Every structure is written in C-alpha cells, then in structure tokens.
C-alpha cells in the first residue's frame, strides 16, 4: 500500500480545500433552494425539497476542510479525513444520480416524464461536487483501494 509518507501532502491539502468549499457551496445552494423553491422545479425527486441532503453536503465539506487543516499541521490523520470525505461525497453523488435515474425510469414506465424529473437542483449540485471529487482525487484513488492493514487490531475498552 501507499504509506502515508508517500502522499503529496501539499497537493492533497489544496484539493481538499477546493472540495471542502465546493461541498459547502453545494449545501448552501440546496439550502437556498429549500427556502425559495421555484414552482417550476417543485416536486422533484430529491432536489431542493430534501434538507437532509444539505446537511450531509455541509458535513462532507467540513470534513474535507478539517482534513486539509490537519494536513497543513502535518498531522497524518488528515489523510483519513480526506479519504472519508471523498468517499462520502461519492456516496452522495451515487445516491442522487441513482435516484434521478430511477425517477426518469419510473416516468418512462408510467408513460409520462416531466421536465421536473430531469432538472433537479439537489442532484445537480451534489453531482457537481461529486464529479469534482472524482476529477481532483484521481491520483489518490488508489489509496482507497489499497489494503490499510493495522499494526494491531485495535482493542477498544469501554466503560472499564
């Protein structure tokens, strides 16, 4: 596996800052649309009517920024933050994409496909950040695939 030392911290930090800001903005755009949902896109499958999506986009943005901060401080756990945020962003993107496609498929099955089922602010913003994630982290994806075996399986003693 790539050891943490082999990772270009500077580049990772910069990318994480860009993505953190992108996710925060995506969450903000969702939130704004949540308040002022234009009638033309009301009733979309997940878009601006779903506040949970906003919360999770903010969460991913914050974890990215925390990761960047830790990397800036040369603390190795920043790498874990960045990877988790990256994975979470991808998960959100997959979820919204799948729901969007499912909604379109359902429209086709039912025999009526409305424009509101295709234009979805939530899906658009989340996908924007997700696609940005994929582009910026292309060279670090192998970290996800590598096997991160621990030195000792961690033993967690609780309430002892």
């Amino acid at each position, binding site marked *: 596996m790539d050891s943490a030392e082999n990772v270009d911290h500077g580049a990772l930090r910069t990318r994480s800052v860009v993505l953190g800001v992108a996710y925060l903005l995506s969450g903000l755009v969702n939130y704004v649309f949540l308040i002022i949902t234009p009638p033309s896109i009301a009733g979309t499958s997940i878009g601006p009517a779903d506040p949970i999506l906003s919360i999770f986009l903010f969460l991913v943005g914050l974890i990215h920024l925390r990761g960047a901060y830790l990397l800036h401080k040369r603390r190795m756990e920043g790498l874990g933050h960045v990877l988790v945020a990256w994975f979470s962003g991808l998960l959100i993107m997959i*979820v919204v994409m799948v*729901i969007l496609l499912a909604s379109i498929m*359902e429209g086709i099955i039912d025999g009526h496909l409305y424009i509101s089922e295709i234009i979805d602010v939530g899906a658009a913003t989340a996908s924007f950040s997700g696609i940005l994630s994929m582009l910026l982290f292309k060279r670090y994806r192998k970290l996800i695939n590598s096997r991160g075996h621990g030195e000792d399986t961690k*033993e967690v003693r609780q309430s002892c």
Partner: protein
Amino acid sequence: MKKDTAPLVRAALAGNPNVGKTSLFNHLTGSNQKVGNWSGVTVEKLSGTMRSSAGEVEIVDLPGSYSLSGFSQDEIIAREYIVNERPDVVVQVIDSSNLERRLYLTVQLLEIGAPLLLVLTKTDITRSRGDRLETDLLSRTLEVPIHQCDLVKGTGIDDLKLSLATFKGQWKEAPKVVDYGHVTESIIERLLVVLKRSGHILGPYPKRWLATRLIEGDSDLVRRSRRSPIHKEIDELLDGLDHEELELDMADKRYDLASSLAKRVLISKPRKRTLSSMIDEVTTGRFTGIPFFLLIMWGMFELTFGLGRPLADLVDIGFGYLGELALDHISPGWLASLIGEGMIGGVGAVLVFLPNILILFLIISVLEGSGYMARAAFIMDRFMTKIGLSGRSFIPMVIGFGCNVPAIMAARTIENRKDRLITILVNPFISCSARLPVYILFTGIFFPETGGTVIFGLYLLGILVAVGSAKLFRMSILKGEPSPMIMELPDYRPPSMKDALKNTWEKGYLYARKAGTLILLGSILMWFLANYSLELSAVDYGSRSSIAGQLGVIVAPVIAPLGFDWKIGVALIFGFFAKEIVIGSLGVLYGGEAHSGSVTEGIANDPIFSPLSSLGLMVFVLLYMPCLATVAVIKQETGSWKWTLFSILYGTAVAYTAALLIYQGGLLIGLG
C-alpha cells in the same frame, strides 16, 4: 459389503471471533455459511463433513471466543463442546496479524489437554508489514502441528485436509502449561488430590484445568461443586481466597506466556500509522462518528428506495397483468378469484419488494465485509454506555436489520443476564427486512418524493425506541450496571463481492421462499376469510359480512382512534404470523377490491388512508408485537413465558401509543 460412511476423525474449529473460522469451515466442507468481517457471526456450532482422499472428517465450527473461561454463552458452547465431546482434534484458527492476543486461547486449549492443530491465517498481512513469523519454532515450542492457509485464495487448504484426515493426537489428562507461582500451585496440588479421588463427579474436565477454574471462581463449576458430595473438601480449600484477584493474576500468567511466545516467534518491524486507523479518526470520531453513520444509513435507504422503486414497479406490473389474466381466463369464478385475487394478489404484493430487499442486503453485506458494521456497533456503544446501557446490545441490533430471529440468538454473546434480557426484549423494535415492504408500499403512495428519508426516519425511530426502552428497563424492572464491552475493530478491507452477492442471494432466496410457502398459505386463508361468511356461504369479496370482515369489525373500535379500519386490523392480526403477511393481506383485500391485482391502486383510492394515517400505520407495524418466529426464539432464549408475553404486550402498547400520538396529534395540528 456395505460401506462404512461414519467419519474417521472429528475436528472442532475454535478461535477468537473474526479470525476466519467460518471461512475455513466453508473451505473445508464446501458449505455456504455466512462470513462477516466482524465478531459474533457464529453463535451456534455448525457442523459439516470434509471429504478428502485420505478420509472423511466431521468438522464443527464453534462460536468465536477469547478464552475458555465461560463468561458468555457462546464461550460456554465452545468450551462444553470441546470438553464433553472430546473431538479428535481441536483446530485453532489464529489470525497471525494479531498473534499475541490469539495465543492466549492457545495456552488455554493446551491447559485443557486438547489435541491441538494450529491454522495461521492472514499471513499476507504479516508479510506486508515486513514481519517474519517463525512457524517452525512455534510448532516445536508448543509441540503442535501448524498449517498456514490463505482463506481468500484458498491456498494451504489441501495440505490441511490431509493432515486432518490422518491426525493422530491424544488428549492429555493434566498438562502443566503455565506455572502459576508457589501459592497458587500449592492450592492446585491440594485440589488435585480431592478431584482425582472423586473421578468425573464435576464433569469430564481435565483435573488440573478444573482446579484452576475453581480457584478462579468459575460460577458454573463452583455451582456444580456445591451440589456434589465433595463440596465440603473443596469449600475448605477455597475458603478465604480472593477469587477475583487470583483470576486476574492467573490470567496475567497466561498472557505473559502468550506474550513471550509471540516475542520469540514473531520478528516485527517498527509500526507505521495505518490507513485504517486514520480513517477511524473520522468514522469513529467523537463528533464525526454518528453523522457519518447517519450518512451511511441515509445512503443505504435512499438507494434501497430509489433504485428499487422502478424495479418494483416492473414486478408490480407483471403481477397485475398475471392477476388480470387469471381473472379473465379462468373459470369457474371462484377459482379465478382464488388464483387471481388470493394467490397472485397476496404473493405478488410481497414479491414486488424483492428488488428492494436484494438492494438492502447487498449494501448491508458490503458494509459488513468492509469492516464498517463493527464501527457502527462501536459508535453506538459509546452512545449507549453514556446512558447506562451495554454497548454489546448494539451488535444484535445491527443483525436485527436483517431478521430479529438470528439477532436475538446473537444476544448469547452477552454474558450479563440482565443485559442479555434487555437486548432480547428491545430487539423486535429494530426494523427487520419483513417490515420494509410495508414502508415502501406506503411511502411510494403517500410520500413519493421523500420516501427514502421517511424510511430512514422509521429505521432511526426503531433504534431510538429500542434504546429508550432499554434505558427504561434498566431504570425499572432490570436494574443494574451495564457490563463493559471489549470489542475488536477489524481493519477495513475491500469487501468481497462474491461473499456479498452470496449473502444477498441467500437472503433474497429465503424471502422468495417465504412468499411461496407461508405467505401463499396466508394469502389463500385470507382469500377464504374475505370470500366467505361465518355460515360458509359466498359473500361479496372483502365485504364486512365476510369472516375477515367480522374479525375486523371486532378489532375496528380499538384501532379506530389510530385512523385504521377493519381491513387494516385484519392485516395487522395476520401480520403476527409473519410481518410480510401484512402486505400479503392488504394485497388480497385491496387488490381484490380494485380488481386489478394492484394493491397500490386499492390503497390509493381508499379514503381511510391519508399521509397521516399511513405514517401511523408504518410506525405501528415497526413497533407492534414481534412475529411468531421471533416470539418463539424469545421464549427459547429467555426460557420464560413471562418475558415472552411481556415482549408481546409491551411492543403492542408502545406501537399503539406511538400511532395514536401521530394520528391524533397530527389531526390536532391540522395535518389530517
């Protein structure tokens, strides 16, 4: 001449949890037992036959245990099997990436005199760290044969099979493996004199091991000794001993031996921080752990709902078409109705949700395989210990997402009786997969835009009610301190898609089989009840004069405050047999009414249903009495009708209160 097919050798697979015992069992026997990257997957012993060119071996997979001390029920199962059944060989599976901790059990197995064979797994991890394991030295020191197996690639299995089929080990009566020091050894010697004189009066245990366990205050063995004729002599020798102190001291001695052995045979490099531990900083972090857990759950239910819905629509269209076909082309009319409305309507209503079930189980299997499920249990443990509950209760809760029956059985790993009882009693609140179709049906009709979020909320509500109830029991009827939890977090690893797909297939198959058996019978019965009156004469399908209608009329006044009518009442009563029957019954009652075979249309067109009443119904189905199979396993595990009845009544009371609050509260604030 008749061929003797009796196995030549009996082998027991023992080891710590999550070292790969079940994987090895599957390799050896060709079975398909469930494998997970977390502890507690096996809570009962499984057996199978290994066939090799050298002969047959009966393999028994024992539940994972850290010691033979018998703290929890799964440890007792493992210990009692080894001691009472005296297998020809005990195969201890050792995860070599964590040698020192695994060798503690090895020491105990040697103490008990078992003929031992060690199987080292995960040696690739040891190598990848740059460590060197001197297996020959370990084998010579312990005087036991050692095999290395790669359970992912399957290497080393053939050699192991040959060794097992030709194994020639012997049980030892009283091996002295650990020197417990002068004082303890002298007590052991005196106890040995008494125990040797009395034969096997306390069980078929090796005498020295028995003596050590009596000194350590093993509650089970001390209880047995008190009922035996030699109790006075034993009590005299044990009188005044601080068992707790001695137990700690003796455990330390075993750990010292395990540790010194590990240091001799494992040449390790200095450790670097690993990716798994860095990822854990976030996934189990104080502030990020729970939000990340919620994100994963949200994603899981959104995908289950979103991806499954169009697929379910396709299946629904298929069954609707089949139902209409049956109604139009079969004669006489009653047979058409039985097949079209009863059988196809009922079974179809359940099978429609097979795509959703498959997606949910695929995601759960991937999460289990990746190692995240153990983190989920850890995160909830921190939350639960804060409010005075045992975190060990959460592992059965996670299993409960699939089915409450194995989940309640998994509570065996909890040693404290009160903790175990609390875990069993609250587990039915965890939403099993049988309840998912009800949510999907009603969210699909009444919350089409936010279905995933509603389902996510229902699952969360189940967890919250379970945790809240546990807290309530802890404060009232089952007072006491929660026992501490020690759990291992396995390293993250890419989940095996083969295992994930296999688990998903098995769950999907069970669901489909249930639809073809129990649900089919339930649907036929429901069709009969909906078609005939008490005088057994045909009446209007699903009318009030039918037997189902009469039954529903009895319960209708009780459930009317919840916004439910008699049809829902009947479906809920029959849901006791299996939660899927709620949907099957609605399929029969509403599919028939719409005469299209589609339950969705029937429900959507019934004025009794509104978003508010459907939310109340979903919450009621989530919380009300456990299904028949769960009730049976609660009786089996608690051994008490009192607690079983309590579980049924408590669940129903909570469900009723919650549904009442939702419906009447909603009406009050103008949501009706």
